[in-house]
């Protein structure tokens, strides 16, 4: 009985879709024990870079250690991939026992088994490939990018990167939810450490903290989900769970069962910065740019996508949950795009675009195309990493300048040619320029959405198209402002002599900056710092990668089987997904494929055109437009709110953090004065107070004592008589 997979069977009209009949039971494969080295290499790197840190190594050694380790991991991942191919059956590699104990012996609920074991299927491999691959590339990039910190924070940086790759690999390779949770929190830790890398900047420290804490909210959801899964299914190992889930009927289960996907969702939304937990990601841009590229664009933030893809068999049992995922994704995409349009800090623009693109991925998951989601993850990883790395190169070159109003025409600045053109590629890909990889992956999702029949997925598709237009606008707003136009630049406020404020970019919405160094270095005194081979080389490699990520899309478009599709199809994530019956749906007389092709192109090109007008051809008109909008009270709120990120941070601050803080103060007061002061000390004072009550009796006068004694004796006698009379039983 395999209901969830029958869908792919009945809609096998597309020859590209491999037919999978069941989630294959994983094979325990001790012979694959060497896969443990994928984790062990970054772990060794963690230790070695830590040692470098302790020994204060004053060379690029830690960087190269990390690069080597990550490259080693990548090589192992490749080996694994070629060993197993696109469609290999999942395997479980047991490394060692972790939280594993049992009681009783009747059923599976009498044990809790969470080992350090690896579950490797094609979904895992898919993620591993770009995590380790991009990780290696970005590490290489960082060896140059971070060179100003050699001997200071250099080792610490690479330590963080190693921790991140270790945790991320653990996350995607975990064979059970608790180990996944370990990786989940581990990447959070790495994010915390790396976002707060410039620890002297209060904003960086606060951003790291915020990232960790907001993520914890999501983690709470994940934890509850894990508990619920154990309670309902008696196990938390994926392999067993898949077998259970695929034997279940859709929609079966009580309240707590149907709650599970929502809990997992909360976790995923936290990690992947979706509504309502996205607020940490823009702030996380305080970290060094390679970190933003690696963690906050390409890999870590896709962990939420991975989680839902990983537990997709469960989600398909709960269509409403999937719809929620889709809608949250779609709305996030739109919402953050509106903010992204109005930011001046181009790193933040990219941050909001990341959130927006992640929204697409969730939309894809929700509307039923795990392939689309995973594929978009892949393409996005490359083009967004590219964008961030170019942004990093610009920051690196212009002393941390990030304001797109203060840079212009960089493609003509010597040394920044590669940067500018790779950035252009990134922007094109981001704006889903026709036949770019970004467009291809986005289209898979939008087509699926527009073909959806229920849950209002069609509307979601239109939202996606609109967002695509906005995306194109803001992406090219950046490129036209920064790379095109007349040459003009103002350096940021950091000098390379002071490593502490390196990367301290100007924050135009008023965040506190500790060292308010004089910002107005005139441009002719300033010499941009052009990237060298490591950065440029990496940019080019990633750009090529971004091109390459288009290949599966073309093949998909041509109805051919492609490796991304096959990999998804042979993983649990594919089970029950509802793709490829979209040709039934018709809007405006077109099927979704045609619809997306047409409107997608319009949106993309339109967005670029508008951006070109406002930001390249008539730069002044952009300011005029803004002034015009601000001048009218009725629409004034639009730009204000967009520039201020819809005041979400302020809202959270006022509604959650503030009350909690006040509660903390009140409770502290209570603790000090009520619990301790009134209750404890009060009770403590009772004996002495009683003593004082009796003190007058000890007045030192003989007669007084005699009277008290006689009176006391009389009282005792009276009490005895009373007891005697009333009860007849003593004491």
């Amino acid at each position, binding site marked *: 009985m395999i209901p969830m997979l029958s869908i792919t069977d009945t809609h096998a009209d597309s020859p590209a879709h491999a037919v999978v009949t069941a989630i294959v039971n994983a094979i325990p494969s001790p012979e694959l024990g060497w896969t443990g080295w994928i984790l062990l290499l970054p772990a060794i790197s963690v230790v070695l870079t830590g040692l470098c840190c302790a020994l204060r190594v004053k060379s690029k050694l830690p960087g190269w250690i990390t690069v080597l380790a990550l490259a080693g991991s990548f090589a192992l991942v490749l080996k694994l991939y070629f060993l197993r191919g696109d469609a290999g059956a999942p395997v479980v590699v047991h490394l060692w026992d972790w939280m594993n104990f049992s009681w009783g012996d009747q059923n599976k609920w009498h044990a809790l088994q969470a080992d350090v074991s690896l579950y490797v299927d094609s979904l895992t491999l898919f993620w591993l490939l770009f995590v380790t691959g991009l990780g290696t590339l970005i590490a290489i990039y960082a060896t140059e990018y971070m060179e100003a910190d050699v001997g200071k924070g250099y080792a610490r940086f690479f330590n963080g990167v190693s921790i991140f790759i270790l945790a991320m690999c653990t996350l995607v390779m975990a064979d059970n939810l608790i180990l996944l949770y370990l990786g989940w929190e581990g990447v959070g830790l790495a994010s915390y450490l790396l976002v707060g890398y410039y620890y002297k900047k209060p904003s960086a420290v606060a951003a790291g903290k915020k990232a960790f804490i907001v993520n914890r909210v999501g983690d709470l959801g994940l934890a509850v989900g894990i508990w619920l899964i154990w309670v309902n299914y008696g196990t938390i190992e994926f392999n067993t769970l898949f077998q259970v889930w695929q034997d279940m009927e859709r929609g079966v289960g009580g309240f707590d069962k149907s709650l599970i996907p929502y809990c997992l969702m909360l976790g995923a939304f936290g990690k992947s910065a979706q509504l309502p937990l996205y607020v940490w990601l823009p702030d996380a841009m305080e970290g060094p740019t390679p970190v933003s590229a690696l963690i906050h664009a390409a890999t870590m933030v896709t962990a939420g996508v991975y989680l839902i893809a990983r537990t997709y068999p469960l989600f398909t049992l709960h269509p409403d949950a999937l719809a929620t995922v889709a809608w949250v994704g779609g709305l996030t995409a739109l919402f953050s795009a509106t903010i992204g349009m109005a930011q001046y800090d181009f790193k933040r623009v990219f941050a909001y675009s990341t959130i927006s693109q992640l929204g697409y991925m969730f939309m894809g998951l929700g509307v039923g195309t795990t392939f689309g989601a995973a594929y978009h993850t892949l393409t996005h990883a490359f083009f967004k990493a590219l964008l961030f790395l170019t942004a990093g190169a610009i920051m690196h070159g212009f002393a941390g300048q990030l304001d797109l109003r203060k840079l212009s025409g960089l493609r003509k600045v010597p040394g920044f040619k590669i940067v500018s053109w790779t950035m252009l590629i990134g922007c094109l890909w981001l704006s889903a320029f026709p036949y770019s990889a970004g467009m291809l992956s986005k289209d898979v999702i939008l087509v699926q959405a527009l073909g959806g029949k229920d849950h209002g997925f069609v509307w979601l598709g239109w939202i996606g198209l609109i967002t695509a237009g906005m995306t194109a606008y803001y992406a090219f707003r950046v490129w036209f402002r920064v790379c095109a136009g007349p040459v003009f630049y103002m350096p940021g406020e950091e000098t390379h002599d002071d490593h502490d404020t390196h990367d301290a970019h100007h924050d135009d919405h008023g965040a506190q900056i500790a060292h308010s160094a004089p910002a107005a270095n005139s441009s002719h005194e300033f010499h941009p710092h052009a990237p060298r081979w490591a950065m440029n080389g990496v940019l080019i490699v990633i750009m090529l990668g971004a091109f390459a990520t288009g290949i599966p899309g073309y093949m998909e478009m041509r109805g051919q089987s492609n490796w991304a599709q096959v990999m998804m199809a042979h993983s649990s994530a594919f089970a029950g997904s509802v793709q490829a019956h979209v040709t039934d749906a018709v809007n405006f007389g077109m099927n979704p494929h045609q619809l997306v092709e047409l409107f997608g192109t319009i949106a993309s090109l339109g967005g670029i055109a508008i951006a070109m007008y406002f930001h390249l051809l008539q730069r002044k008109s952009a300011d005029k437009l803004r002034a015009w909008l601000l001048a009218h009270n009725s629409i004034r709120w639009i730009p204000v709110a967009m520039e201020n990120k819809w005041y979400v941070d302020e809202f959270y601050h006022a509604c959650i953090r503030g009350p909690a803080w006040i509660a903390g103060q009140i409770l502290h007061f209570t603790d000090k004065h009520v619990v301790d002061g009134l209750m404890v000390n009060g009770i403590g004072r009772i004996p002495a107070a009683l003593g004082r009550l009796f*003190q*007058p009796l*000890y*007045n*030192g*006068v*003989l*007669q007084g004592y*005699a*009277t008290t004694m*006689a009176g006391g004796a009389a009282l005792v006698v009276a009490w005895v008589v009373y007891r005697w009379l009333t009860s007849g039983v003593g004491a």
Partner: protein
Amino acid sequence: MTHLLAASQFGASHAVTITLAMSALLFTIGLVGFLVRRNMILMFLCTEIMFQAAALAFIAFGRMRMDTGGQIFVIFILTIAAAEAALALGLVILLFRRKETLSSEAWSELHE
């Protein structure tokens, strides 16, 4: 055990009852006197009265129970009372020499 049986029919003698009442009265007088008087000699005499009340009670009960034990006890009570009297007088004299007063209230240096 025979004497017990005999004693159980007590209450015969009216005189015994009166003596007992007398004894109780005496004890009360002694106690009240002890509580209200400040002169140490008088206070001491009041304790003596209480002693004698007990002695009287012993005699009355002895009579009632037809037992000589009560009377024997009285002798010892008298002896002890004498010993206490000696002690009391010694103390009182000692104190009087110190403060030239017999009032017990003069001696309330020790208190809370």
